[in-house]
């Protein structure tokens, strides 16, 4: 099962943006909702060693271009092996996008990096762990290698 990402398409110019926007950023026309497949290629990335209020360093951020051209910001477990152009899976957990295929330990650790009330963090971590377990059990979680074998066509 592939994750999907909520986005919006301009009925006039066809531009797709994510997360969905009410009005096309290129001109004042109401957009229509679309769903995009949750994989794409890395446009750029960074690791913050100085994080803003509400986050703990090191904070890994990537900009990922999804099929259709929409780009989203994602968090990740690390950027050491990341390269521009690398294909990654994008998963959304409670409104937050994560790039790459993440193990359960990675997910738990990631959620602890986002500040929040402790019960929320525990709940989020549990939900994520459960979700990761099920997707791995049902579908064989997409590993980076499998992703490389399934290159997507970029629609420009």
């Amino acid at each position: 099962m592939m994750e999907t990402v909520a986005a919006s398409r301009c009925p006039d110019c066809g531009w797709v943006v994510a997360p969905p926007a009410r009005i096309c950023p290129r001109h004042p026309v109401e957009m229509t909702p679309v769903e995009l497949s949750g994989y794409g290629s890395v446009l750029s990335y960074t690791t913050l060693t100085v994080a803003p209020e509400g986050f703990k360093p090191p904070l890994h951020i990537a900009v990922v271009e999804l099929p259709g051209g929409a780009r989203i910001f994602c968090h990740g477990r690390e950027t050491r092996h990341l390269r521009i152009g690398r294909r990654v899976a994008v998963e959304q957990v409670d409104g937050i996008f994560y790039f790459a295929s993440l193990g359960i330990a990675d997910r738990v650790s990631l959620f602890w990096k986002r500040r929040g009330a402790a019960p929320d963090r525990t709940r989020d971590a549990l939900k994520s762990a459960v979700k990761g377990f099920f997707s791995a059990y049902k579908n064989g979680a997409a590993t980076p290698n499998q992703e490389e074998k399934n290159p997507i066509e970029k629609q420009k």
Partner: protein
Amino acid sequence: MKSVWIAAAAMTRFGRRSENLEDLMADAALEALAEADCQPDALVVTCMAPEELVGEGNFASHIGTYLGLSHVPALRVETATSSGAAALYTGFALIASGLHNRVLVVGGEKMTHVSTPRVSEIISRVIDPHERSYGATMPALAAIVTRAALAKGLFTEADMARISVKNHANGARNPYAHFQQPVTLEEVMASRMIADPLRLQHCCPISDGAAALMLTADPTGLKVAGVGQGSDFLAVRYRSSLTSFRATQDAAKAAFNMAGFGAERVQVAEIHDAFAPFEILALEDTGLFPPGKATRAIQNGELAIEGRLPVNPSGGLNSRGHALAATGLAQIVELAWQLTGRAVGRQVKATVGLAHSIGGMATNNWVTLVEQVA
């Protein structure tokens, strides 16, 4: 359209200042008033975030009253980190349109009394909400741009470091600079990582400071030859290019179009190097160098004070410092001093200067051209 002239230019030293914001702005404003030897008939005030940083609102009236100019119509202008350039434009427009004859433009920011994570969070509010919700700060977005530019081979990490070295060398000659100590290439490249691949010495400091200009309809010899504004999506992810700024390109075109001359006449430039690699991108986006030619100029030392085209003789944001809304005006003050032979210790030979200012992550940029008319 009436011509607009600079009658006075003043600024405080940038850095960690003990004075409050009102006094920093008053120091710059009173010096400009004294130099101009006339009273303004309009006041343009700029401060990026006085509500958050110093807890003051209704800021144009606040500063108007503090300066003893409450009888003068006042307004506040804000375009994020390029607010100073926007304020200059507003003053320019008030005179060019014939609405006013003498406009005092004053900008300031006071930040060093607030903790760095808090300042970082306040400045981050200029970023798109989706991007900000991932912890994207200005250094984070700048790092994302820089990583993409490095991957395209537009410049190397050594080129980035050379910008910091040059601008710190210039700042060491500027008594108004926040940092007045040179740094070596090795020190820059070994400095602490902030947002990979950006290191501490690639990033501008958090500075306090103020700057003021008196603009008039009466010729003074120092002319605001052109002002251009360019804009772009707030969201970096909407941009067709991560490695050039449309807002700078459009601002430069508009400014040169208004001035009626091209980039070849520019002899000194103040560039918004909040992050060192941005100076390289701006040199090409403004048209001062053709695409792909700026790095050679950096390697050859052409951008030094003694070089062919001195860039950031003040030290730039990297070394002179970045007091948000004061910065765009401080750039014009530097050009005014350079073009009238008052840049003691760092004087260049020039009659035309260019100032480039970035608002937010290049969402609201400005290019201003100043010309010494014989």
